[in-house]
């Protein structure tokens, strides 16, 4: 392992006590955040309050204008950072995105709670770093989710999903009148699912398994085409509309069958391009850990690209949250399926940021006091006796086992609605049931504090670990008019100076320069040896670059300037007078 990574890990392993707010910080805390689910209006009010209550001598806070959604919902956003001479817009930026997947309300709350914590404790804001927070990154979809109508992250862009000429005509319905829209199992000999050994859960059907089911959202066949809920209200899932691996899910949807087609989603991509985006934290998902770029099995970067940086991030996450989660894995593993068009891949590949999906909620986030002696619910496997059924139903998947443990041991089974029959009309019936809205995909409100614990600390520690350049002039001398300068760059931060992807999108086949040293000559001076600008590649945290030397013919008293830059750092410059 590179010495820089070792140094960085040593830094991480030091036991550093949590930083408490100073007395002065506690006295002027801005708008208060409470761990509960906030509506979009409340989010907008919080953001507005934070901007209005900012005191520039303590914290710089600015509004970030993002276009409203198609239905006119605002996309509240703000930028903030420690006071300093560099404007926020020009600093290396940590972008905090909540619920871009249109599902993760818990993720939105994580952005709010982290922002609140950082604004209340400005001593934890690293110098010359900016944060941009977009708590509700997909407002229409999140509002749908909050109202119990969402589920797949779609916004409200009207789309003709099934190409029948009608728009949004067959969406979910509350068939059993319980006020909730859950899942529905329709018996189908070609269906991909069967009920598992614990019949609350489903498993992929094996040859000979019966009965088989199709899994859809609860609802009737409103348009009478034999399909159920195939053209619901909306829409576009923002987190599936980025261009890497993107494929059109709605071939008939005029105006929304292109990647990044929705202006309020494209604006988030443009935001990352216009800022010097060093890290993107996407708070979403229900696996409780960190997801890495790689939503498909084939990706345009090497398999082990930036392994050191991701390892550092994982240790920071584990330390901040106290979670004993599995090692971070690419999205395709963490999400257990390919997720083409994922935003995470694009933020990593094109802006070249350290991009991470932070799954705020998951089955192992809440710890059982004592799991022993808590039995699983006795569930009736009602179809076992049907002719043709296999004797042994398939096992429950590992993920479902984890969720079952949480459900039964910590929630006493509350949060899952047993499958129960409903009439679909025309003599057909189906089973309705599944996870309640705030149970699996988002934390129950009571569990929100546990889900949010440590999220702000993680953001603070990750930003504190960002690289910091130091220019080391190892030799500066003059003999007559001939000057010799030798210099190196050191990264005195913990993370490297950039990712494998940083700068690559614009550099063609050439290797991107990464960190860079440049010598600026005064008028009349001449470079006798060395290149004026030298690419130094990526420098690991705690590491130094190779030495660069220049020989310059310059009149006595001349001032030369050495510039050092890197993708994730502030540029520095030093005047040299050999």
């Amino acid at each position, binding site marked *: 392992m590179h010495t820089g990574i070792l140094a960085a890990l040593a830094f991480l392993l030091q036991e550093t006590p949590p930083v408490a707010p100073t007395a002065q910080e506690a006295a002027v805390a801005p708008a208060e955040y409470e761990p509960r689910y906030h509506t979009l209006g409340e989010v907008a009010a919080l953001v507005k309050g934070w901007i209005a209550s900012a005191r520039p001598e303590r914290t710089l806070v600015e509004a970030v204008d993002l276009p409203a959604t198609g239905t006119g919902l605002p996309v509240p956003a703000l930028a903030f950072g420690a006071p300093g001479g560099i404007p926020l817009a020009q600093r290396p930026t940590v972008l905090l995105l909540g619920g871009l997947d249109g599902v993760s309300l818990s993720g939105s709350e994580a952005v709010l709670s982290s922002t609140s914590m950082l604004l209340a404790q400005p001593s934890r804001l690293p110098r010359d770093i900016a944060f941009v927070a977009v708590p509700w990154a997909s407002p229409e979809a999140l509002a749908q989710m909050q109202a119990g109508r969402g589920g797949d992250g779609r916004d409200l862009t009207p789309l003709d999903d099934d190409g029948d000429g009608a728009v949004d005509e067959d969406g979910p319905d509350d068939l059993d009148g319980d006020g909730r829209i859950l899942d529905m199992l329709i018996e189908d000999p070609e269906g991909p699912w069967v009920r598992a050994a614990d019949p609350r859960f489903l498993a992929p059907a094996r040859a000979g398994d019966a009965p088989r089911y199709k899994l859809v959202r609860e609802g009737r066949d409103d348009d009478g085409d034999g399909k159920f809920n195939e053209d619901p209200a909306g829409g576009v899932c923002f987190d599936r509309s980025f261009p*890497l691996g993107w494929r059109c899910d709605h071939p008939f949807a*005029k105006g929304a069958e292109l990647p990044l087609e929705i202006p309020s989603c494209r604006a988030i991509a443009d935001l990352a391009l216009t800022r010097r985006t060093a890290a993107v934290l996407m708070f979403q998902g229900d696996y409780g850990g960190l997801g890495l770029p790689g939503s498909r099995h084939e990706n345009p970067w090497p398999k082990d690209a930036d392994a050191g940086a991701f390892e550092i991030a994982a240790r920071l996450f584990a330390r901040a949250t106290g979670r004993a989660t599995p090692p971070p894995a690419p999205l395709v593993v963490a999400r257990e399926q390919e997720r083409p068009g994922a935003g995470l891949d694009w933020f990593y590949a*094109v802006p070249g940021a350290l991009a991470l999906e932070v799954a705020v909620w998951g089955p192992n986030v809440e710890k059982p006091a004592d799991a022993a002696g808590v039995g699983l619910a006795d569930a009736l496997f009602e179809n076992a006796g049907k002719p043709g059924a296999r004797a042994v139903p398939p096992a429950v998947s590992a993920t479902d086992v984890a969720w079952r443990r949480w459900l039964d041991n910590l929630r006493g089974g509350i949060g899952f609605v047993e499958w129960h029959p409903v009439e679909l009309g025309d003599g057909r019936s189906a089973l309705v049931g599944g996870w309640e809205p705030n149970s699996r995909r988002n934390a129950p409100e009571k569990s929100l504090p546990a889900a949010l614990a440590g999220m702000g600390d993680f953001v603070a520690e990750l930003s504190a670990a960002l690289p910091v350049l130091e220019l080391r002039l190892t030799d500066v001398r003059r003999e007559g008019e001939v000057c010799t300068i030798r210099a190196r760059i050191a990264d005195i931060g913990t993370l490297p100076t950039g990712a494998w992807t940083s700068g690559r999108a614009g550099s063609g*086949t050439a290797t991107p320069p990464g960190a860079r040293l440049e010598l600026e000559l005064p008028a009349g001076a001449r470079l006798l040896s060395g290149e004026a600008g030298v690419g130094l590649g990526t420098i690991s945290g705690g590491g130094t670059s190779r030495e660069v030397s220049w020989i310059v013919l310059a009149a006595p008293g001349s001032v030369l300037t050495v510039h050092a830059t890197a993708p994730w750092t502030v540029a520095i410059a030093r005047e040299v007078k050999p």
Partner: protein
Amino acid sequence: MSRCVRHRATWTALALLAATAPARAQDPVTPPPPPASEPPAAGAPAPPESKPAPPAPPVIDYTVRFDLATYEASLGGIAAAYPDLLRVRSLGKSRGGRDIWLAVAADDSAGDAGHRPAALVVTDLAYLPKSRAPGPEAALFALATLLERARAETSVRERLQRTALYFLPAPDPDAAFAAAESDAAAPVRRCRLDRNFPAGWQPYDAESEASGPYPLSEPESRLLAHFLLERLNLSIVLAFDGTTEPAAPPRADDARPPGSFEAFCRDVLDTTVLHPAPWNGAARTSAAGSAPEGFFTAAALAERTLDELPRIECGAPKLERLRPNVWLVDLPLANTGVQPTRGRAARTGESGEVQLRATGGLVVACAMEHGGGTYDAVRAARDAWPLGHLDGRAKATVRLVVQADEGTPLEVSFDSPRSGRARVSLVLR
């Protein structure tokens, strides 16, 4: 053309463009179908007597490189000369603020162009680094030649009554004209337009800044992609290659780099892409003006393309009385074009198929035979009978069982986005 004359010509052209852009300038994607009783137009309507006769078509020197003013003046002059056959509108502005002009060649007296089989003639977006972007001259010459022939020859005009030809002579006006205008600021572009389309787009390209930060990041590619996606009637794209080598090798059929305009046309739009290379040969003169020989070849290809578009034709129906009020109707159907009726709209749903609709009787059953003698029953959709697709030159027979009283007039229509509409009328007796 002197600067003074050129400016006056530009203003004249822009005025003409404004005058020729009708309220229905944007050919709608799904226009309301014409009433069933509307007979097909036999030709262009006679202009009202109060209207002045259109000016004579301009005679243009296509052997010189156009600047923006010359281009707009030429296009305006052509539009003014053929008000019955040409509609011109701007798709929008380029990054440098120049209009991207679209010209639609079609005889509107036969219904809306957006509902007819169509092809696109476009100056290719691809050009070699360090070489100039191809100008609009070849596409403009093809347009002028086609219109001149449509006025002179009934057969060409008839083609423009059943088909439409879209022309985008300068889809990247900043690249085409910036170099020709010394006072114009070079546009700030983040990529090569021909690598900026959502078809296998990759973030990393062999060339610096080639593919852009995301597909359609540029206004030109975005406008073009939107325009094309809305044209479900489009089957063929003729991309006029900018190669100036006299004997440029033909482009390989599978040459479609990731994210290229060509990949987008083939893989997303499901269109056939042809690459004529007009910039070669000695100059000669026609009624449209002087142009290199290659321009004439490319213009002839554009005209021939109209015959290759999918076209549904229905032959004489065969009628048999099964019961006093039950009829068996056999309708011979053919796609007389080379291109299939299957297109992008057919990927996942039924609305891209050939759809049969009937009025005047109740169609109680429908079946189709593709030449093997066996009829397969067709399942009815909500308001039509989806018949599937017909390959180029394919024939089929549609069998209808119709319930209606004797003497009932039966009107049957066949529609698909790519092949347009064919109708047949008969009386059940």
